[in-house]
């Protein structure tokens, strides 16, 4: 009985190994993106030549995508892995990558596509000491909220797709050019729309917005978190409120991933307007694409700015 069971089990395992271990190369490039903005770009450039899977759905915190074992088989079969980089995915990606057992998408391999390539980071810390909170040693990773820098990521994704499937270069080039044209037009529109509110001051829960503020001439006044990933203390909240009152900061941004209680309290006590802004496509309804997301952010801020 025992022997029969062992024999059957062995045969089953051998069969799986023989027929399943080397998945046939699909005609489409299998792309896994950590976050939804990268997935959106990959779909725009790749068109119907790619299958794109995003680990995040859009509503997650960029640092808090759950490590679901169901991601492992997807990563195992991926041709390309797109990541934001600058340590943005440090909480979940290294372990998932190890579990994926896919040598093509490991760090340093062509399938490991770090979209931060060529981007000059802001806020590179001098130390990773935890007294500064959960700082990113490579600099602030939220550059994707600057659409001009996003164009660099788009180019990186294009290069990776061409490298993975050179036979589709013409398609990818046409799609990229068309998308960049559309994005450039939107960037001009966003810059124009935000001109009247140049210098607009705002605070947010997490340190997501330095690149966005820098691009559009806004003043990023501070964060509700004491330090990255460290909840605010009563003293910090008090000091922030005083400073906001003194400097007439009119907007409090809450990213959907963070609780409303403290931002709401700060907004009430300072007379500021509380707005909820997504940090990637899908973060709030009707922001399914990158352009829709930035559109939403720009118009929400303009609507909340003092008239």
């Amino acid at each position, binding site marked *: 009985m025992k022997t029969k069971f062992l024999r059957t089990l062995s045969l089953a395992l051998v069969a*799986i*190994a023989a027929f*399943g*271990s*080397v*998945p046939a190369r699909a005609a489409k490039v299998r792309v896994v993106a950590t976050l939804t903005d990268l997935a959106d770009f990959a779909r725009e450039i790749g068109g119907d030549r790619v299958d794109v899977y995003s680990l995040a*759905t859009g*509503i*997650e*915190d960029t640092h*808090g995508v*759950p*490590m*679901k*074992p*169901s991601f*492992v*088989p997807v990563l*195992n079969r991926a041709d390309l892995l797109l990541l934001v*980089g*600058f340590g943005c995915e*440090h909480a*979940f990606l290294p*372990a*998932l990558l*190890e*579990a*994926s*057992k896919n*040598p093509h998408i*490991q*760090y*340093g*391999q*062509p399938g*490991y*596509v*770090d979209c*931060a*390539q*060529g*981007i*000059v*980071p802001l806020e*590179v*810390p001098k130390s*990773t000491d*935890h007294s500064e*909170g*959960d700082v990113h*040693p*490579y*600099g602030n990773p939220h550059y994707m909220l600057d659409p001009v820098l996003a164009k660099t990521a788009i180019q990186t994704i294009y290069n990776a797709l061409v490298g993975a499937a050179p036979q589709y270069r013409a398609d990818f080039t046409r799609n990229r050019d068309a998308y960049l044209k559309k994005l450039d037009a939107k960037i001009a529109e966003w810059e124009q729309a935000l001109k009247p509110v140049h210098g607009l001051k705002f605070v947010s829960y997490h340190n997501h917005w330095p690149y966005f503020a820098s691009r559009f001439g806004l003043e990023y006044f501070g964060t509700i978190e004491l330090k990255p*990933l*460290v*909840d605010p203390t009563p003293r910090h909240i008090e000091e922030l409120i005083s400073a906001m009152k003194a400097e007439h900061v009119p907007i409090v941004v809450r990213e*959907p*991933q*963070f*609780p409303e209680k403290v931002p709401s309290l700060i907004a009430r006590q300072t007379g500021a307007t509380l707005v909820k802004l997504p940090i990637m496509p899908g973060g709030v309804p009707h922001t399914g694409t990158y352009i829709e997301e930035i559109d939403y952010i720009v118009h929400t801020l303009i609507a909340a700015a003092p008239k």
Partner: protein
Amino acid sequence: MKIRLIGLCLGLSAFSLIAQEAIDAEKLNKQLKQLQETFEKQQAEMKANFEKLVREQQSQIDALKKQLEASTNAPPGAAGRPGAGIAGGAVTPEQLRELNEKVAAVVQAQTKTRFSYRSKGSDLTGSDRPGGFDVFQRSIELNVAGSVDPFAKGYAVINATAESATGEATLGVEEAALQTTALPWNLELKAGRFFGEFGRLGYIHDHELPFVNRPLVLDQYIGGESKTDGAQVNWLLPVAHYISLSLGAGDQFGDDPNNPGTFRHFSELNFFGRLSTYFDLRPDWQIEGGISGLLNPKAEDRGGALLQPNGVTTFTERERRLAGLDFKLSYVPLLNNQFRGFTWGTELLYSNNRYRVDPDGIPSTGDEFNDHVGSFGLYSYATYKWTRQWSGGFLFDWVQNAQNNHDQTFAYSPYITWALSHWNQLRLQYTHTDHNAASGLHPDDAIYLQWAWIIGSHAHGWQQR
């Protein structure tokens, strides 16, 4: 005459005019020449300045191009590193990042201190810690990890724990293993000293447990953490659904080593394995389950002759068989899992060891016999997180003594955790332990306050998810 005079005057005037014009033209010529010279001089200066500016800009462009090439054409080991194209300075972000990376990879220390009060002494509870007030520097760990080469990574966990009897810290290597990173066919090999895969919490370090103490069944049936000196192969089945299979062999499993003896046969090794899978019930709800097994066909006196509660009889382990069933149901809200969460984890173990029983405890008197003892044990816990800083839960323990299944222990432990930050947490736990009459031990109440902290990089491994 008059006409001549007028003509002469006119002629003179004309001459003087012509002469004057000649003088003016000369002046103008001079001025023009000066102007031209000035203009040419300024033009030359402007040209020089412009050329200088162009040269400077060109050199900047060239430098940037070189940096861009360096960042895009970097060797595989450096490919994909962001920010490599940043212009000079005393310390570039790239250099800083590499330094950070090195520091983060090498230094990671964690420690766990337990303050407790137990209502009964260790003679009545069977604990290895004294009753009453006790401060136990439970562990100080130093973790080192990094790539060995493109094909493997290595890691070591050095641990110092206070000796129960003396209070002195003893330093030991808890783990030191090599793990392949580039094997084909979804395989991964680990070799050295490591925590072998069995169940869910057996291979989790103490400081990562969701409660203060290791569940009784893991302590008693496995012997604490599932430490082994051996090798383990993990295979991710190449199917669209997550199924993972680990198989390993080692010369011990748990804290108590086999008697090394003089010659170790193949059958004296410990063979272990786990098959696990996972399902997304809903985007926010997940369930994960596994079955595990451990077999040591010829246990060589693991733990020595174990004295029974009657004070005479001894049991010596001759064969070790252990099976486990585990599952974890989790609520991990996609939107705000840093602030909300729920976990229900349960593990059921069945131990069916064979012992050499010596009723009078005196060897070779002829009364010894072999006996298989089948015992069950389980733990089940539920933890709810309601803010980023606060979580609480309840742990239930039940275990039958592996040598005497009539001897049972129950424990009930509510606990609450305050995570001041990701690296600094306090946990308060109350535990009521009940022993039945067969054990000869007494019920016991204990309060624990545990302070655990981490310095250095703290990456979440796959097993700790």
